[in-house]
């Protein structure tokens, strides 16, 4: 999702868009579906194991990585709840490199690191208009354990991705929109990637 909405605090300019928008479905169990699912699992493992170089290698240099805020709405606008004017993450490839670079130095928020488990489910895949690009929608369930606190912090979200096939096999992430479910996040910071 690039910068499409004009900056505004008035919420009704926001779009409803969620889920899979592609009409050309890549069926569950097909070769491409399986390989993309495997890619999502590999990505989750790289992030859970804090192998940031491996994760960066899975990102495309034209990456758009955003997490719009979510709001509680009523009436005619009850489903217009994804605010694409304000974000929890608003990043590109360069800023992600800045973030991962920081994580290798003095980023106290992740030093000591939290122990994360990313559960990726409900994966649906469609073909994009551009050849070799796939829209991949998944559910994310993140459990995050920090310090000696026996209670994990949790976060659920829908991720609307575009993965692009690259020469030599495999896919890179070109776009990710993370639609969190909480209007008020219960996680005390987002020092981890979603």
């Amino acid at each position, binding site marked *: 999702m690039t910068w499409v909405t004009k900056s*505004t*605090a*008035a919420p009704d300019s926001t779009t409803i868009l969620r889920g899979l928008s592609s009409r050309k479905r890549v069926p569950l169990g097909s070769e491409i579906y399986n390989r993309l699912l495997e890619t999502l699992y590999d990505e989750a493992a790289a992030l859970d194991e804090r192998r940031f170089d491996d994760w960066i290698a899975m990102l495309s240099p034209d990456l758009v990585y955003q997490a719009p805020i979510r709001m509680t709405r*009523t009436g005619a606008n009850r489903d217009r709840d994804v605010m694409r004017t304000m974000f*929890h993450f608003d990043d590109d490839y360069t800023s992600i490199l800045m973030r991962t670079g920081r994580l290798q130095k003095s*980023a106290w928020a992740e030093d000591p690191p939290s122990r994360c488990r990313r559960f990726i489910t409900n994966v649906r895949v469609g073909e994009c208009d551009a050849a070799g690009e796939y829209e991949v929608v998944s559910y994310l369930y993140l459990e995050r354990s920090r310090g000696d606190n026996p209670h994990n912090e949790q976060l659920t979200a829908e991720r609307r991705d575009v993965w692009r096939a690259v020469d030599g096999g495999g896919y890179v992430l070109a776009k990710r929109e993370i639609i969190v479910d909480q209007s008020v996040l219960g996680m005390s*910071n987002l020092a981890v990637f979603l």
Partner: protein
Amino acid sequence: MLQQASLVLRDGTTLDDLIMRDTNEVSLRVMTDEELYSHEMERIFAKTWLLLGHESEIPKSGDFIVRDMAEDNVIIARDRDGSVNVTLNVCPHRGMRVCLGEAGNKPIHQCIYHGWAFKPNGDFIGAPVEREKMHGNNVDKATLGLKKARVHLYGGLIFATWNIDGPSFDEYLGDIKYYMDQLFCRTDNGLELLGPPQRFVLPCNWKVPGEQSGSDGFHTLTLHRSLMEGGVMGGTAESIYDQAPGMYGVDVSCEQGHSLRCLEAEKTFKMFADVPFEGKSVEERLNLLTPPGITKEMIPQLFKNLSADQVEQLATIPPQVGGMFPNILIAFIFAPRTDGGSSGALALHTYVPRGPNQVEFVNFIFAEKDAPEQMKRDMLQNSVQQTGTSGTIEQDDADVWPVIMRNARGGVSKHMTLKYQALHGHERPEGWKGGGLLYPGFTKDDTQWNWWMAYHKLMSEA
């Protein structure tokens, strides 16, 4: 002689036992005590002015947003006459919330329980089945409106208070207004909120981030050392404590507990290390290092809206970070680029109490309304990447505060004290134009101690 504080907790502890004015210490117990918290709700949050949002969130008649004044949920609505109204979101009938959404547009707010209806200004319209007088047999409708707060708009920021006859907003701001105006009242069309605020909760008392908002500059060197490692601020990772970038300036404050850190911007940034600012005119300086959010084309507006002295300060030693008592943090962060451009980040936070053990961090991100769209875009990105939920600066703050909170619960730990004993004392730098309490040189504990003194003062007044 120190005036005797009138607050006494059930176990006999007085306010002066908790806030030790003779030694400049504060007992860690203040962060967890439930009884103290309930007094704070009445003596601070029901008394002082609180920041709720910005006018640009409710541009049209009928537009509304819902926010919290501490634990009291309120509706902020624009009425047909253009006025901004703040009313308690509690139905006077049986206590249901009248407005369940966070934002929208409604000419009439109708409670979903029994259907009582209210105007955007809170006035009672009526109950369904009018002929049956379900609002009461002999009750005057004029008494059945939503409870109204007193509202003040400052630079488009919406402030409200329950203290209807209390101090005016200007009295609340005091001497800090001269400096705040340089941030909030400097352009023709003012600031614009770029989107609804980020919201998240932290497991700590509101005063843990609160006391830091009293201009704790010192923590930046250690907690935010990644700023130096990343090469943004002056100095290198090895020389952080030698060079102490961003530490020397003039901290300004006032007895109301507000404060701002004024810093010579060029000294904060590596890229200006070799650029001579000495001897340059105010215009030349503003062109070299334009305040965050301002374009070079907007510079004449500064001269129009501010006094010559205020513009000179903005060009020389601008206010950059600080806070307003009790629970507002201000960050007007410079972000000069090597291509000569500058966008920066403009963010305000409120730390809204949600019980003694929890605080909601509300992050408002701004740009100047007149700025070009691309600049707004840059500022949004800068602010999101540095502040709030995923901000690389404030991630680290959010990591510290809950840990302090856990410590404050220990039977032994809670008697430890927060120390504000590194004091400079008020001193007026030569040629300084603004008023208030002034602390030139290395940033010390004075402004944060003033924050606690403002706290002490309000808590002593029943």
